[in-house]
């Protein structure tokens, strides 16, 4: 049974993948939602726009027919003169025909100017109208009880001398059973007077019943697949923005205008008025947004289309309607995607769990191996994929690990033994070097001090002092090439041989030469040693020396002067068996000191890889105020160690100081 925690691989992998998937999901849903929302918004806007256009189209049918009938009638009235006898019948005939063609056109009124139809009669108008197809009424308006001279439908076209579409009105004629709202296409007509002059005779009004037009506004399906919200409003207004018909909104009564509606809130939004003006002065069709104008109870979008008579069909739809219509689609869309996301997350988790199970097992095995249990059993994983290869590799690794550990144990044992042997060799090498420096018996005038620190367990530096005869003391320092055991062995050989060849009767250069010949004779490994050999006469202070490629020692005079004992420099020993070494000599005065050293001093490095160098050594010697060899040695040693400051020692370090004090 696998245990799952927040840190388990399946959980973490699932979380990472799900997070990435969620981000992609959000981006995808937002993008797709935006595209869908935009498309649907455009679609719904188009639907609303098409709706207003089709309503305007139907309206145009009424308007065009009304205008055509009015114009024909005006022309006819000018050509044919009618009297009070035939005019009612004439109107009846036209109304009946007109009704059949366009049921919304319900009446005709022919109103004459004062005294035109009958002299001395101020009012003379005939109004024929129908209420339904079976009911016709003719009214003769010939009294001041209905003073049509002050009615808009009469006075406006007469004054303007051009036809107009009036706003809705009720005739309010005493005794006439008519209380419906209607509006008219009013056109002035002309007749010839007695002098055959064309005179303005009156006005013809083609009446349109408002209720009959309502069906054009309301009884049309909005769209095949989208239902228009009930809170939307459709209305008709004239070219000045005055509401003509608003079938389903009492707040938009006929005396109001789109502009007065904009003014209606206590704090109107001036942008509404500018939007409304854009309808009147702008494009014939379009859409505007009204924020506060109470066409509806909420901010709305107004889609409008201008009719043939410049009246405007408007449909006000709540601004939130499109959003409200689209939200169910959006929720379905979101829910679908969310379900898909959950499914994908579940699948990812199961897949991660399935694939990570062997890894978890192998992780446990690795943990056991890490604890040292190399023989823990690795479960068989028989797949060819990376996990299978990992299991095989772990098997192999387990076997190799066991072998390696066994090998390591052996190697460690060998190394420990070698270390122990090296310690023994070190002790042997140290025993070869002089344990004590002068005063030798009878050589009290020469005092000395020495130090040798090998870089490894054993080293290749060597030094020695021994008495050659009653007066002379041999002083030797050398440095075998290389480090470690080979150098130590070569150093031991050199130490052994030099005592054999050293003699009071043989010149210094000859001693060195003989030593060289002996070392060259059996030097199959090609090793060599730098070597300085000196003989100091305690009685005279005379020093004879030979230098075989070694760092030249310094002679520090009591007055502070420094001299290099470097005359007759030869090549290191062990290289060429017939090399003719030569000797140099100098005179020591009381309190003079000889300082001998190997390159472990001058080539000591600090942590910054700076080299100590000859210059620092010379500086120490020149500025030294020490009075004896031991202090001088200590001063140089302190200088070197303070310079290297803990850096790892790279070479053997040997320093000898002798003082001549007769």
């Amino acid at each position: 049974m696998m245990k799952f925690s927040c840190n388990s691989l399946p959980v973490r992998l699932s979380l990472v993948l799900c997070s990435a998937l969620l981000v992609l999901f959000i981006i995808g849903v937002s993008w797709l939602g935006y595209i869908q929302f935009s498309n649907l918004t455009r679609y719904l806007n188009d639907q609303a726009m098409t709706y207003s256009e089709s309503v305007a189209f139907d309206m145009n049918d009424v308007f065009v027919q009304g205008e055509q009938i009015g114009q024909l009638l005006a022309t006819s009235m000018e050509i044919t003169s009618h009297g009070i006898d035939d005019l009612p019948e004439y109107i009846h005939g036209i109304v009946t025909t007109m009704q059949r063609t366009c049921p919304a056109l319900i009446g005709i009124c022919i109103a004459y100017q004062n005294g035109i139809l009958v002299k001395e009669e101020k009012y003379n108008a005939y109004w024929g109208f129908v209420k339904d197809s079976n009911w016709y009424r003719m009214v003769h308006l010939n009294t001041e009880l209905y003073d049509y001279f002050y009615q808009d439908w009469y006075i406006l076209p007469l004054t303007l001398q051009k036809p107009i579409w009036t706003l809705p009105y009720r005739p309010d004629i005493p005794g006439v059973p008519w209380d419906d709202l209607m509006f008219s296409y009013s056109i002035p007509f002309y007749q010839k007077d007695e002098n055959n002059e064309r005179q303005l005779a009156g006005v013809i009004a083609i009446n349109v019943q408002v209720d009959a037009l309502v069906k054009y506004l309301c009884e049309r399906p909005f769209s095949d697949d989208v239902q228009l919200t009930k809170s939307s409003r459709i209305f008709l207004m004239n070219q000045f923005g005055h509401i003509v018909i608003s079938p389903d909104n009492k707040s938009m009564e006929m005396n109001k205008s789109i502009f007065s509606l904009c003014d209606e809130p206590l704090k109107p939004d001036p942008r509404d008025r500018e939007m409304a003006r854009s309808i009147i002065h702008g494009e014939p069709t379009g859409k505007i947004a009204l924020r506060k104008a109470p066409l509806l109870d909420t901010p709305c979008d107004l889609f409008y289309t201008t009719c043939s008579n410049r009246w405007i069909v408007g449909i006000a739809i709540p601004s939130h309607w499109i959003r409200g219509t689209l939200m169910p689609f959006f929720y379905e869309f979101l829910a679908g995607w969310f379900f898909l996301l959950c499914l994908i997350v579940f699948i990812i988790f199961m897949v991660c769990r399935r694939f990570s199970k062997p890894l978890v097992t192998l992780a446990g095995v690795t943990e056991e191996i890490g604890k040292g249990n190399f023989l823990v059993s690795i479960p068989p994983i028989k797949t060819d994929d990376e996990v299978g290869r990992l299991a095989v590799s772990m098997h192999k690794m387990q076997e190799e690990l066991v072998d390696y550990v066994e090998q390591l144990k052996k190697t460690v044992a060998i190394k420990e033994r070698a270390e122990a042997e090296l310690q023994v060799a070190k002790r042997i090498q140290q025993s070869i070097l002089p344990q004590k420096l002068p005063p030798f018996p009878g050589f009290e005038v020469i005092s000395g001090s020495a130090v040798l620190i090998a870089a490894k367990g054993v080293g290749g530096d060597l030094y020695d002092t021994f008495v050659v005869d009653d007066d002379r003391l041999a002083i030797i320092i050398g440095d075998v090439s290389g480090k470690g055991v080979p150098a130590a062995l070569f150093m031991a050989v050199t130490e052994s041989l030099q005592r054999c060849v050293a003699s009071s009767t043989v010149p210094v250069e000859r001693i060195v030469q003989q030593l060289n010949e002996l070392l060259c004779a059996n030097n199959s490994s090609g090793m060599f040693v730098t070597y300085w050999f000196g003989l100091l006469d305690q009685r005279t202070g005379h020093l004879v020396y030979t230098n075989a490629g070694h760092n030249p020692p310094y002679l520090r005079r009591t007055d502070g002067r420094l001299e290099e004992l470097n005359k007759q420099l030869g090549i290191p020993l062990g290289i060429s068996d017939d090399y003719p070494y030569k000797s140099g000599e100098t005179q020591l005065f009381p309190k003079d000191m000889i300082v001998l050293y190997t390159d472990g001093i001058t080539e000591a490095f600090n942590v910054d890889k700076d080299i100590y160098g000859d210059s620092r050594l010379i500086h120490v010697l020149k500025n030294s105020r020490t009075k004896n060899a031991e202090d001088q040695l200590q001063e140089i040693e302190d200088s070197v160690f303070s310079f290297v400051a803990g850096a790892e020692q790279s070479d053997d370090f040997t320093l000898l100081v002798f003082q001549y004090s007769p």
Partner: protein
Amino acid sequence: MRKKLHGGRVVAITTFLILIFSSFVSGEESKTWRLRMIWLPQAEFAGIYVALVDGLYEKAGVHVVVDHAQPDEELFDSLKKKKVDVIVDWPLAALEHIAHGEKIVNIGQITQRSALMLIARKNLNIQSPKDMNGYRIGLWPAISLKSPYLAFFKHYNITDYTVLPILTNVDLFLYQGIDITAGVYYDEFYRLRASGFNEDELSYFYLNDTFPELVDDGLYCNEETWLDDPVACQKIRDATMEGWRRAFENKERTLNIVERLCKKHGKPFNLPHQRWMLNVMEKIIAPDGRFSDGLMRKETFKQCMSILDLDENTIRYEQFIPQIKGKK
């Protein structure tokens, strides 16, 4: 002096007794005062409606009924024919009628300023009244409504113009059947605004800019009516002014009253229009927030006489604006 005082007291007591007696005799036939407005129901008369609704006339002891004139009705003719007892009309028309021999008095001056104006399209470039020559001007048919404008034209020597009749709307102006229309700031100006005109698209001239003392609505009755019952006339004036005070105190209530009245008379009610009208009425009835006592100022009377070129000796201020003796 004492005799005079004594005599005066006797007269007063006698008058009081006569009044008591007459009230007993005619108590059941208390007079109904017919008050007719110059125009259709609207917030222009809101103070009178409020006075009616609040029973201010009844409380003052006068029974008032109101109705409204048609746009072509000559209200002073109706007054002369005693079809009505009191009318709301304008002073120039009243003075003209008096100059023609009629006996009319102003029993209360409601507005202290005038909202009368002439409005033209900006694109006609009419920058001053003198530029109005040669244009078609729309005026209301009633003489009393025309008279201030005719005086205005006379003042500026505008003679070359055509008058066309306008009615209860601004349609003739909208259809460009006229170039200039008469109007008032609280009505026609708003109607143009409600037809899509912005103020900067119109040139307009207040008659008050030419005639600073000109006023609009006042209460008028026949001199005979005044003489019959000056106290009642004064009560009508006071109740009317109180009605206006209350109308402005609570404008939303006032607009509700106007709306109810419009519906009662079958007239459309347009809230923003009526709100605009009520606000303008407040500015001309109580300029700077100060109500008058309902009496026309002498300066106003003089200017009206001057506008009409009437000699002050023909009509005296006290004759036009009579007051109960002993009262200022």
